C-alpha cells in the first residue's frame, strides 16, 4: 500500500523480493516493470516531471480504489521522475491477492492508469531536440477498458 516517486534508478527484482516476502496467505503476486526503450539507436532520454504531494496522492487514491475493487492484500507503485536513460526501468507495479485473476487485473489496471492519466508530464530529449509527449490513442483505449 505504497507509492514511491524517486529520481534514482531502481532494481525491479529487489522490489519484487521485498514485496513478496512473508506473505503466507497470498497466492498470487503480479508485477510489471516498464523500461525506457532505446528505440533502435535514436538516443533519446526520457524526462518525467511530477508534482510532489499531488502526483503521489493521486496515485495513492487510485491504488486504494484498486485495492478495494479487487480485494488486494498489498500493492506497490515505484515510479522514476527526472531524466531516465534508455534501458532503465521507469515504473514498477506489484499487486498481491489470494487468487491470480485479481492480482493480474489490478496490476494491468494500475499500469493503464499510470501510463495514460497519472499526473506526469513527459518530455523526450532526442537528436532533433526536445518534445512534450501526449498520451497515445492506445493508452486512452486501454484506460477506458476499466470504466464499465
Amino acid at each position: 500500500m505504497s507509492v514511491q516517486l524517486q529520481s534514482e534508478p531502481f532494481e525491479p527484482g529487489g522490489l519484487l523480493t521485498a514485496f513478496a516476502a512473508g506473505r503466507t496467505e497470498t497466492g498470487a503476486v503480479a508485477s510489471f516493470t516498464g523500461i525506457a526503450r532505446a528505440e533502435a539507436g535514436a538516443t533519446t532520454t526520457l524526462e518525467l516531471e511530477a508534482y510532489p504531494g499531488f502526483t503521489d496522492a493521486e496515485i495513492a487514491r487510485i491504488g486504494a480504489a484498486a485495492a478495494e475493487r479487487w480485494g488486494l492484500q498489498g500493492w506497490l507503485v515505484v515510479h522514476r521522475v527526472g531524466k531516465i536513460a534508455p534501458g532503465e526501468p521507469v515504473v514498477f507495479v506489484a499487486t498481491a491477492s489470494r487468487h491470480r485473476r485479481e492480482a493480474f487485473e489490478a496490476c494491468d489496471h494500475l499500469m493503464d492508469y499510470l501510463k495514460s492519466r497519472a499526473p506526469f508530464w513527459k518530455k523526450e530529449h532526442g537528436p532533433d531536440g526536445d518534445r512534450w509527449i501526449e498520451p497515445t490513442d492506445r493508452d486512452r483505449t486501454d484506460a477506458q477498458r476499466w470504466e464499465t
Partner: protein
Amino acid sequence: MAKVLLFGRLADVAGWRDAEIEATSLHALRDTLTATDSALGEALAGPGVQAAVDKVIVRGDAPLTATSEVAFLPPMSGG
C-alpha cells in the same frame, strides 16, 4: 503573495517554473499572468489545462491567501 507553479510545457512557455505573485483569487491571478505574458495567458487558457489550489483541482474561481499554492497543470501524459 501566492506561490505559483507551472508544469510541463507551461514552464517552457513562461521561462520560469515557480514564482511568488500577488493575487486574492484564481481569476485575478490568471489576469495578472496574462497581462504580464500574453503567450503564457494563452497557454493557460488552452484545452485541458487545469489549476490546483493547495494540491486540489479547482474548476472556476477560488479565493487565494498569502500561503496558497497554485499549480497550473497541462494535460497529464502519464508516466
